[in-house]
């Protein structure tokens, strides 16, 4: 087995701390500007234009799971992932980028800042509280992302796993708390340049390394011929399950934050569609690296094989860049999740329940403390992922989509929606998900996210129709601490 640590040079040891220091500098540079009010802290005063929107959305969305998780899933499932996840995700998200994003930017009032605000705006406060469960889900997923960075730093540098996670979490927490979305957007652009640039160079270097498709196919056929079939080693239900998880961008708070932070609605449509073009290409490169690792290093653990391919393929100098890209991928996602989760907790729960008269400056101050606390929690949650993160997004993305997709997307456009219908559908879907996954253990092998998604639609529409006469139909103005910002 190749000694990965021997490839890590002194230059790489210098470049990583310098990179982290630059991120901290950006955070403090925007501290004053971000601290003016909640809109500047959470939405960067709605100033993001196409290139910045593209950079920040892509860097936030294509993260360490896309780098390591997708690669290791390809090791197991083959080109199946291209057909039922990578390409599908682009096609199913066209309506989100082209119509829903611009609609949210232009039609949703400025005081609707967080996703619970949006649920409260479309339905009522009760449903918005249920929407808070997203914060917990995102926290668990952020733990998987931090674990990925700890693991790669441990593999290639020998740094203790826990220390790598603590350093990465601390740097993200500090610059996010200081500069809010300003620092997140700027650092995301830098991070996407590193991520896309190094993945692009890796694609060029992979060709001679594996001998093109001919060499790759020959090696994979020996391992398992199904790896080269579109249906791969999966089955139809699993294929649909992966496709459902690709819809998660419709319900992820990151999307709605970026839509609201755009300068114009046309910037959203152009920026998000372009982001998908570049993002699916980035994902496809990771699938290709996963296939190469299966072909060349079948006896290694998938994650180790993945990094062995990266470090063997890339020339000296670019190796450190790719590790920095993973660091960037994690940080650019975790910073957004820190920001969204802390603002939701403080604005929609702490202020609403305990301090309704809280000023905006106090809200931002408390928000910063909560980001630090969240950071500690994330490091603790990494314990859940020591078995590997290859299925992290299948479960987390699938959960978010299955529970929230129907009420959120229907709520934006369907005039027959009711607050009671939404509340019933959300609670019933949460109960159904737990029952199907944890108690019944996925009966008939039917994926939980797909079953819950269908169940959610079956409950939501009849519940709305049955409760329309109760007088709760129509939009309810948000009361979760947002109205004073209007």
């Amino acid at each position: 087995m190749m000694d990965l640590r021997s490839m890590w040079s002194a230059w790489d040891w210098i470049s990583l701390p310098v990179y982290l220091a630059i991120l901290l500098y950006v955070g403090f540079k925007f501290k004053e500007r971000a601290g003016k009010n909640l809109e500047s802290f959470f939405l960067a005063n709605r100033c993001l234009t196409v290139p910045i929107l593209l950079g920040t959305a892509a860097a936030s969305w294509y993260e360490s799971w896309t780098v390591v998780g997708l690669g290791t899933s390809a090791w197991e499932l083959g080109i199946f992932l291209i057909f039922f996840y990578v390409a599908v995700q682009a096609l199913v998200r066209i309506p989100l980028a082209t119509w829903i994003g611009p609609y949210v930017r232009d039609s949703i009032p400025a005081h609707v800042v967080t996703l619970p605000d949006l649920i409260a705006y479309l339905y009522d406060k009760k449903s918005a509280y249920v929407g808070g469960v997203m914060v917990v889900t995102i926290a668990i997923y952020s733990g998987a992302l931090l674990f990925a960075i700890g693991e790669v730093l441990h593999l290639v540098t020998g740094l203790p796993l826990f220390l790598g996670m603590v350093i990465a979490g601390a740097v993200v927490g500090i610059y996010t708390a200081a500069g809010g979305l300003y620092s997140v957007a700027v650092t995301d652009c830098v991070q996407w340049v590193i991520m896309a640039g190094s993945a692009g160079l890796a694609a060029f270097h992979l060709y001679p390394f594996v001998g093109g498709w001919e060499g790759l196919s020959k090696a994979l056929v020996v391992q398992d011929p199904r790896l080269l079939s579109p249906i791969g080693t999966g089955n139809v239900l699993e294929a649909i399950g992966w496709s459902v998880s690709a819809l998660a961008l419709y319900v992820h708070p990151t999307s709605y934050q970026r839509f609201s932070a755009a300068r114009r609605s046309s910037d959203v449509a152009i920026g998000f569609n372009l982001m998908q073009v570049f993002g699916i290409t980035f994902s496809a490169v990771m699938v290709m690296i996963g296939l190469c690792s299966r072909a060349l290093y079948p006896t290694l653990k998938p994650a180790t094989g993945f990094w062995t391919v990266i470090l063997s393929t890339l020339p000296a100098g670019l190796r450190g860049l790719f590790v920095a890209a993973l660091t960037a991928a994690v940080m650019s996602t975790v910073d957004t999740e820190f920001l969204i989760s802390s603002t939701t907790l403080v604005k929609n729960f702490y202020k609403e329940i305990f301090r309704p008269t809280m000023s905006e400056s106090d809200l931002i101050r408390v928000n910063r403390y909560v980001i630090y606390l969240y950071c500690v929690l994330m490091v603790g949650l990494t314990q859940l992922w020591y078995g590997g993160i290859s299925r992290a997004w299948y479960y987390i993305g699938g959960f978010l989509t299955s529970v929230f997709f129907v009420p959120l997307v229907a709520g934006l456009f369907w005039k027959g929606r009711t607050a009671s219908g939404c509340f019933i559908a959300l609670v019933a879907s949460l109960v159904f998900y737990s029952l199907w996954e944890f108690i019944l253990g996925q009966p008939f092998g039917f994926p939980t996210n797909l079953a819950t998604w269908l169940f959610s639609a079956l409950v939501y529409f009849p519940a709305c129709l049955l409760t329309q006469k109760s007088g709760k139909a129509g939009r309810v103005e948000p009361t979760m601490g947002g109205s004073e910002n209007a």
Partner: protein
Amino acid sequence: MPKQEKSTWVSLSVIMLVFQSLFLMWAFLTKCDVVFFEMGTVLIISALYVGVGYVIEVARGVFRN
């Protein structure tokens, strides 16, 4: 930006997205070697677009408001 020009750019971005999805599926299905270079080129263009675009936008004062 005039409305017609916006529609053109939005349509163009959607067309690129559909093309790239179909291209990737076709290339992985037919095992076409070109995909290695196409993916590399697209990603390097993406890095340049965001990097240069960011510098231009900052010079135009996007963060000054």
